[in-house]
């Protein structure tokens, strides 16, 4: 596979499409111009920064640095997901555990099965994808958990009133939240190659890789990601629902009588 070189000029030229997005917003008065501008600046700063960080990690070639980077991504991902699950009390702890387990389990399994070598050039991008997808899945799942527990408070209380435990009362909601966390990636995996080409495959093709190699690597990554979102969703929901209940199996904020 040959390398691919992209000049600063070529990156700048793609701002033409940003101009299209801003023009659409102005034309239809969607009032997104500021958000688009912030998104452009943030993506530029963040990706350039992480690019230099990754370059430094590759130069040092230390697995400890990789582990540190993955730990930082887990923490940052947990805080980001918590912001999206504002209705879930004490969500940070479950999210940290969920993302950590998803990262360790999937990367560990991938290495143990010999799918990738334990080198920064594999662990950094794959780790980033795993944590990013695990974060999104956990955020969606906990967002659904918070909404559903609030909306089903009467049902939950009626079940608690029968002498059920908080786990039993929350079980249908936890199950639905888990599905919500996983379903997006499951659906996109079903349609991959038909409606869209996934990013890794696109990147490899652009870099001149053999299409069959690109497909194989993409399949590996898709299936690894399915495992990671399952782990992060089940752990996040399985731990986070407890924040809504007291040790005496009471809803912390019961509905108004």
């Amino acid at each position, binding site marked *: 596979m040959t390398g691919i070189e992209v000049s600063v000029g070529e990156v700048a030229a793609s701002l033409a499409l940003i101009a299209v997005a801003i023009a659409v917003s102005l034309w239809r008065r969607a009032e997104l111009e500021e958000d688009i501008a912030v998104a452009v600046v943030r993506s530029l700063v963040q990706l350039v920064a992480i690019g230099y960080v990754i370059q430094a990690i590759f130069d040092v070639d230390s697995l400890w640095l990789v582990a540190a980077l993955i730990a930082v991504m887990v923490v940052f991902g947990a805080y980001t997901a918590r912001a999206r699950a504002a209705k879930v009390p004490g969500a940070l702890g479950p999210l940290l555990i969920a993302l950590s387990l998803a990262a360790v389990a999937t990367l560990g399994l991938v290495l143990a099965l010999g799918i990738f070598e334990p080198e920064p050039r594999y662990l950094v991008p794959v780790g980033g994808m795993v944590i990013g997808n695990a974060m999104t899945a956990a955020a969606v799942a906990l967002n659904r958990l918070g909404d559903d527990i609030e909306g089903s408070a009467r049902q939950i209380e*009626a*079940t608690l*009133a*029968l*002498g059920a435990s908080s786990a039993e009362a929350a079980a249908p909601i936890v199950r639905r939240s888990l599905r919500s966390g996983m379903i997006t990636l499951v659906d996109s995996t079903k349609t991959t190659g038909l409606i869209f080409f996934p990013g890794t495959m696109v990147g490899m093709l652009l870099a001149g890789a053999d299409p069959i190699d690109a497909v194989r690597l993409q399949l590996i990554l898709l299936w690894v990601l399915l495992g990671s979102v399952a782990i992060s969703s089940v752990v996040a929901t399985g731990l986070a629902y407890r924040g809504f209940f007291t040790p005496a*199996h*009471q809803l912390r904020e*019961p509905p108004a009588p």
Partner: protein
Amino acid sequence: MLFELARVSLSRAGRPVLRDLTCSLREGASALVGPSGSGKSTILRLLNRLSDPDEGSVAYRGADVREREPRALRREVCLVPQLPALIEGTVADNVRFAAACGERNPDVGRLLRLSGLDPAYADRDGARLSVGEQQRVMLARALALEPKVLLLDEPTSALDETARDAVEATLTELRERLDLATVTVTHDPAQARRLADWIVRVDTGRAVEQGAAAEVLQ
């Protein structure tokens, strides 16, 4: 005494709901009577620890309710909420679900009859029943646990007069047949007089009067 509440206070969202409330509920049939927002339903929730007070104590047959395992307490002192909240599925599914919470083996037909429903309702979808029928299913669910005390929160608030009379007749019959103690929350003093022998009048979070129904509700 069935229940004794001593200097109970409770606030919700910064607003006091119960203020230094002290009252007793006798064995047999008792009622908590008062206007909407007076704290009656909140008191009911304290009796089986669906909520705990911020201050004060609640005793059930002489023992502090906090000394009981909450789930076991709720199966013995079973609360039927004001609004129905059935699980998805048939009437029989709901009754069996409740029985499973108490590890009981239910006779669905008998429980429906006790609740004033024909056993033929067993296979009907709970979501398609009328509010009155759903409330009877909620009652059947509670009875599936073979409780010793029933806590009834406004059991007829959503019903017309005919349905209300039918439910009251069912409750009266249940008390006699099963020797159940009941605590009923109602805003209607006339209903309290029909359903209870012992009354606690509640107003703005305090117990203002308690005694025999004939004396309190003369």
